[in-house]
């Protein structure tokens, strides 16, 4: 182990301060806000609702549509509005990260629409978006096999590091985001860029799973916070 000290004083396996809240948007069927440090994601869910145009409908199952957008003011340099290649790819992997948790076969011919907007970005926006989207789906009352959690991890100076900041992303040997369903112990998003031996890949994934388990507790609390009052 090296003596790598994090600029923000966190332990290597520590998340940034986490805030999660559900029901934050008035018009959506389900919604959530998730922040990890300076990264803030908001998600809205609509549906299951009728899908138009009709030729897109599937008679056996609902379709899931996801869109990931960064607000123009979310980064230091303004983000140009409209889809980018990056946002198209993240929308795709977000959908593929969430879909394994859903029972789409219960809602034939309909759509479930998930919209993620990043209000403020300091690394880990796709994973913050997935955490928020999963909460928003649960908030909308959509049946799920389990909550989907997501976090990135990496390796700096021989130390495995959880939940990288933007500055840490500059120096990490790899950036490895995962999405994980703790209840099922299944990985639904795996991406990485970097340059590390296979053994490190496994150890970094294990560290990220720990982070996901903590996030899962935060998600449960956020849902209980709203629904234990309103429910029953």
């Amino acid at each position, binding site marked *: 182990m090296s003596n790598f000290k994090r600029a923000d004083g966190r332990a290597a396996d520590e998340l940034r301060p986490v805030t999660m809240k559900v029901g934050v948007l008035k018009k959506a069927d389900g919604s959530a806000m998730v922040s990890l440090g300076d990264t803030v994601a908001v998600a809205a869910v609509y549906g299951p609702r009728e899908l138009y145009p009709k030729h897109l409908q599937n008679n056996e199952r609902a379709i899931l549509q996801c869109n990931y957008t960064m607000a123009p003011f979310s980064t230091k340099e303004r983000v140009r509005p409209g889809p980018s290649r990056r946002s198209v*790819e993240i929308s795709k992997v977000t959908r593929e990260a969430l879909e394994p948790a859903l029972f789409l076969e219960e809602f034939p011919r309909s759509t479930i629409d998930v919209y993620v907007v990043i209000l403020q970005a300091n690394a880990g926006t796709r994973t913050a978006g997935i955490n928020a989207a999963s909460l928003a789906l649960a908030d909308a009352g959509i049946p799920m096999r389990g909550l989907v959690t997501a976090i990135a991890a990496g390796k700096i100076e021989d130390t495995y590091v959880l939940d990288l900041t933007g500055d840490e992303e500059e120096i990490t040997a790899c950036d490895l985001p995962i999405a994980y369903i703790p209840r099922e112990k299944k990985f639904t998003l*795996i991406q990485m860029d970097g340059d590390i031996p*296979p053994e490190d*890949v*496994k150890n970094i994934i294990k560290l990220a799973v720990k982070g996901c388990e903590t996030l899962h507790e935060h998600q449960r609390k956020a849902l209980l916070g709203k629904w234990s009052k309103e429910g029953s």
Partner: protein
Amino acid sequence: MNIQNQYIRNLITKGDRIRGRALDQYRDIVIEKNPIKNAEGSALVKIGKTEVMVGVKLDIGEPFADTPDEGILIAGAEFSPIASPEFELGPPGENAIELARVVDRGIRESKCIDMKKLCIKKGEKVWMVNIDIQPLSHDGNLIDAAGIAAIVALMNARLPKLEDDKVVYGEKTDTTLPVNDIPIPVTVAKINGKLFVDPDLEEEDSIDARLTITTKSNGNVCALQKGRTGSFSFEEIEEAIKISVRKGKEIREIVKSLKT
């Protein structure tokens, strides 16, 4: 799920495949280098009936502000209807964008191109390396075919002549691109917990999920990408990494044997 998907899934579950391949067996890989005269480098890769052409075009441009002494790498993919009746005209869809970004990530993160050597004048002029992926026939596993074609095209690219810092196209020099590693993407597909490589189109239509793992000559992993709507367990990821390191090495040997 149609009857053919079900048949393929049942076969794979028993460890068999529709065309009799082993689970860890690629279709025949055929590589042609530099088939395109006007590209600075190019490659045609055939994996069974899948064919992907990649062309490398070099151009001079301004470097990015945060990397004033480094060249620029850009990968793009266009899914033209010539490759499949399923492809439609129009701007790149999410599958084409994902393909280009996964290939880009493998090349970029492996650092197989010495980007500093592509600097002509710091802060002003650098080489821009455009990698364009054009599938000619889509019969499954476009990612691996495109990734192999991209590195072969880069290895065989030669810089065009420069006159007063302007490119004279059509006149290539003997200088090759500074390529020092061979990243190879291996896509591991999954059906009912069984892992296998190189799905053909019919198999690809039947899979639960896929995991593309790009490895370097020293066995390091430089890119990962999970796709489709299924999931993986930790043990499956471990197994997939093992498979991709092994198959990546085999494919790298084929690519090496072609080197000019």
